[in-house]
């Protein structure tokens, strides 16, 4: 991978004059802001339609963060991640509809099954590099969506299938407002867990193998095992999310696992910023809102969307959040007179 000259600018994780601490206090601020937005947003949302949009953004954000762990932090591209989301969704749908399972065991079983599949696949494909890995994951996603579309006896084929609501201990989630708190909570939990991971020795190992597999392995990191582990983690999170969103939307079709959905996730990660959790949230907001705003302008929606992608990547090649953060910080640093070195 080539590096943009911008990247040679200091963008230290610690403040220039602060103690040699790990990333810490800044995390709390970000998290508090996110929690406040999630908690206060319902006051601004006029009706169920807007709750639905907010929920879809949260789903995209969690999925984006899951993919970012794999792509942005560990450096392994996946163009088929929606396939795992689809496996979770259909796993839950089939187990609850055809076998009469309760939603929670179905969700866990679907996640477990997806984890096993992801593990088997990861073992063979994560040896591949760059574009070959992109091709393999792309193929995997497409195969999953074609299978879902063809096994009509189980999945309803291209038309899709209905899914019951989510109930636990006799209580059933109903309505956008209740689901909003589920997905809002899930988003916050995902951010906390993902940041914990990234800041831990395990997360450092993932980023290290992104930076240099050679250096990582010589430092005692089992590169192959780590890649498989993060792939399985990422796929499993997507699967669980797929299960929940299947119960939420009440109806699923093979499109949710398709190539376009996988591309959407990659756009979220790259547009928002690789290796940036809040970048993925930003990307999800953009991808969740833009189609709503552009809807109804047939043809133009596609053009405008394309233009936004191209222009953003040209002017903010590292993604919106990291690129802007660097600019803000370097402006602040030069103001105080002096760079890091």
């Amino acid at each position, binding site marked *: 991978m080539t590096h943009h000259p911008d990247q040679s600018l200091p963008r230290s994780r610690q403040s220039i004059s602060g103690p040699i601490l790990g990333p810490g206090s800044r995390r709390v601020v970000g998290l508090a802001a996110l929690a406040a937005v999630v908690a206060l947003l319902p006051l601004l949302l006029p009706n169920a339609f807007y709750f639905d949009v907010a929920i879809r953004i949260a789903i995209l954000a969690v999925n984006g963060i899951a993919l970012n762990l794999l792509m942005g932090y560990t450096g392994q591209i996946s163009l088929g991640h929606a396939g795992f989301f689809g496996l979770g969704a259909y796993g839950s749908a089939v187990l609850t509809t055809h076998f009469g399972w309760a939603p929670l065991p179905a969700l866990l079983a679907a996640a477990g099954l997806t984890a096993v599949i992801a593990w088997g696949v990861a073992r063979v494909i994560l040896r591949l590099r760059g574009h070959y890995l992109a091709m393999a994951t792309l193929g995997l996603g497409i195969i999953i969506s074609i299978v879902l579309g063809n096994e009509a006896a189980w999945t309803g084929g291209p038309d899709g299938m209905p899914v019951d609501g989510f109930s636990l201990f006799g209580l059933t989630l109903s309505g956008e407002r209740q689901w909003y708190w589920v997905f809002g909570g899930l988003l916050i939990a995902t951010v906390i867990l993902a940041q914990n991971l990234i800041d831990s*020795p395990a997360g450092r190992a993932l980023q290290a193998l992104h930076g240099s597999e050679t250096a990582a392995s010589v430092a005692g990191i089992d590169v192959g095992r780590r890649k498989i582990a993060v792939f399985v983690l990422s796929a499993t999170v997507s699967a669980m999310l797929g299960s929940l969103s299947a119960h939420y939307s009440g109806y699923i079709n093979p499109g949710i696992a398709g190539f376009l959905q996988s591309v959407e996730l990659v756009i979220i990660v790259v547009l928002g910023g690789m290796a940036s959790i809040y970048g993925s949230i930003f990307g999800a907001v953009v991808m969740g809102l833009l189609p709503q705003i552009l809807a109804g302008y047939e043809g133009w929606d596609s053009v405008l969307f394309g233009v936004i992608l191209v222009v953003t990547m040209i002017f903010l090649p590292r993604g919106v959040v990291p690129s802007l953060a660097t600019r803000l910080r370097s402006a602040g640093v030069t103001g105080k007179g002096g760079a890091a070195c």
Partner: protein
Amino acid sequence: MLTVANLSKRFGGVHAVQDVSFTIPRGCVYSVIGPNGAGKTTLFNLISGLYTPTSGSIGFEGQEIGGAAPDQLARRGMSRTFQNLQICRNLSAIDNVMVGAHLTLNSSMVAGMLRWPGLSRADRACRERAAALMERVGCGAFIRADAAAMPYGALKRLEIARALASEPKILFLDEPAAGLNHTETHGIQTLVADLARSGLTVVVVEHDMKLVMSVSDRILVLNYGRRLAEGTPSEIRENPEVIAAYLGADAEED
């Protein structure tokens, strides 16, 4: 401590290392020298598990390790730096050093996600140790910098700090002084001597003869992948073959 016997590595038609044997005693400074392309880096790559030998054996503390994976060898106490830097440019400088300490920390992903009790404290202690190491190797000025923002010389030292962070038994340095100026080279020389005095076994590939002659207990000379000579610095200095093949060539370069 390390015994290499009849080690060979071929790349297609190139015999990068051919039938090389030597033994490195514990606690000494052992240098490997030879003209460009002699196979020194390949030898390091073989010993540290990055390449699989075509034939021959490598014994470390009495056990055969030829063909073992690099991370397994790291567990056994091997550590190294690279001639062509292997820096994680997506991490801060101090995080690079902490990567070296990977094996000393609980690196389970579940523990990380759940912030296992004690994990943060151990990580913070590790960060302080990493900072101390950076001071020790002479790149303390960059403790708060990003690796991507550091100059070449500082990165060479950063790699040494990272290699030391794993608390190795044996340390391999591939051209630690390449591209450094006179004073910096002298700093490396003192550092190597210090490390050896603390009981670490250090293996150095280096073109700077003054450094090699002053720090080494023993020297191995490679030429076209083959062992040309082995002995103490004074023996090597006097060896006519070495003078002809290597020192002569080096004199031409200067």
